[in-house]
């Protein structure tokens, strides 16, 4: 799904000559120190940023050259958990989650039902009608996860999805992501949490200063992080 990529949004290049291939239906961890370029890499897949050079192939299409008007249709197939949440502070939690469905033109009742189901899967159905600023950090993070999952996307990009969650919830959420993956969704998770990488034993890519320095499975990768 991914080919040759380079990107230089700032003055010094943030990502340098990345080569990477994620299979359909795969579960991949992306790790690396703060500022390594993990979020940037995810943004490229999502066309929130365009690569300076190289190409990003998703289902065989080079999204790096996708024209403006095509972007929304690509994004509808990708669920994203943003590191900085990006919740609308003036809409209720259920509306925030349902947003992804509204965009697809899903009928109103169905939107509400599906949103509540997604919220339930992250344990927040009781907060459906609350405004995001009144939620705790971990609750907000789970809302974002619910939003990313609500329309069963083909690809799920999760940027630090458990940074604000306690260990028990972290495991629950990761199990949820594994379930989603088992149902066919390609999942890419950027994380700093070595215990997760160790626990789930998935393919792990390590970024450092914009280059891919290691690719390993489970505890080998976790060992590298210490």
């Amino acid at each position, binding site marked *: 799904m991914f080919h040759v990529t380079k990107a230089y949004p700032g003055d010094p290049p943030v990502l340098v000559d990345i080569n990477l291939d994620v299979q359909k239906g795969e579960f991949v961890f992306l790790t690396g120190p703060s500022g390594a370029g993990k979020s940037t890499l995810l943004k490229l897949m*999502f066309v*929130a940023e365009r690569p300076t050079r190289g190409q990003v192939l998703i289902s065989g299409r080079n999204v790096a050259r996708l024209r403006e*008007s095509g*972007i*929304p*249709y*690509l*994004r*509808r197939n*990708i669920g*994203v958990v*943003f590191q900085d949440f*990006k*919740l*609308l*502070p*003036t*809409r209720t939690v259920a509306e925030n989650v349902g*947003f*992804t469905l*509204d*965009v*697809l*033109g*899903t*009928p*109103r009742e169905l939107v509400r039902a599906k949103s509540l189901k997604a919220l339930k899967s992250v344990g927040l159905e009781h907060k459906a009608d609350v405004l995001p600023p009144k939620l705790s950090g971990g609750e907000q993070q789970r809302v974002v996860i619910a*939003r990313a999952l609500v329309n069963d996307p083909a690809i799920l990009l999760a940027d630090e999805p458990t940074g604000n969650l306690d260990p028990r919830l972290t495991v629950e959420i990761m199990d949820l992501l594994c379930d989603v993956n088992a149902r066919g969704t390609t999942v890419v998770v950027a994380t700093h949490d070595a215990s997760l990488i160790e626990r789930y034993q998935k393919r792990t890519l390590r970024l450092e200063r914009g280059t891919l320095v290691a690719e390993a499975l489970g505890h080998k990768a976790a060992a590298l992080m210490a």
Partner: protein
Amino acid sequence: MSVTASLSYFSRTALNGIVRSPFVHVIAVASLAIALVGFGLARMASAQLDRLMLALAGEVEMTVYLEPGTTPDKMAELQQALSQRTGGQTRVVSPAEALGRLSKELGDPGHALTSLEENPLPWSVEVTLPPLAREPEALKALADRVRTLPFVTQVDYGQEALERLTAIARALKLGSLIAFVLVFLTAIVVVSATLQLAIYSRREDIEIQKLVGATDRFVRAPFLIEGLLQGAVAATLACGALWAFAFFVGPKLAALFSFLDVGGPRPGIDPRLVLELFGIGAAMGLLGSVVAVRRFLRV
């Protein structure tokens, strides 16, 4: 998504937007309403001004003095010719009548005039001119033509007073035109500014909408509906304000000119003006939204 379903979704979203951040909407509506009131006042003033100027100008009459010894036959002939040429009503005035009027105009001291043995005044024809012929230039041309008719010695039409009134009318027209242009420019600046700020305060919404895969059209639709609604609400408010103005201030203004008999009772607001206000309000709201939302669609 069916058209009705999406329309209902967009309307709901627009209404939600209004309910949830009433502040910016109140401001946008207020500025639109003020702009429309300005426009409506300019229109009403311009209409009133025309009527007022007609009334102020009063009856414009032309007096055509005849040679001594013109026979009644010739007079009737001339009267007809004048009627045709000017399109106004004509009336023959005898020297006796003219002297009577003159002495009346002079008041008490002029009384002595009626006791004169010999009437020094000539026969004359008075022409009441239709509004079309009242422009000073047209009138001058007309007078020049009439002067060449047989038996006519002189033509009089209060040239100076008319020119003065026409100048006032022109100045008022120009003044109201300038005021109108100013109000309109202000309105456009204010409305687009407020709407831009209103949408600026929602750039986060737009950004997030685009991030979850909304098309530009999808993002824009609720804003356009909001703009339309704002325009409609503003037009309603403006109509109310104008009606109140016509109701409370109008009579006072009219009273000032009561001696002029400007015409029947003032109509509240012209229904055409109401339509115009709604049309312009909706157009401005819509246009403001289109322009304003465009700046934030590039994410």
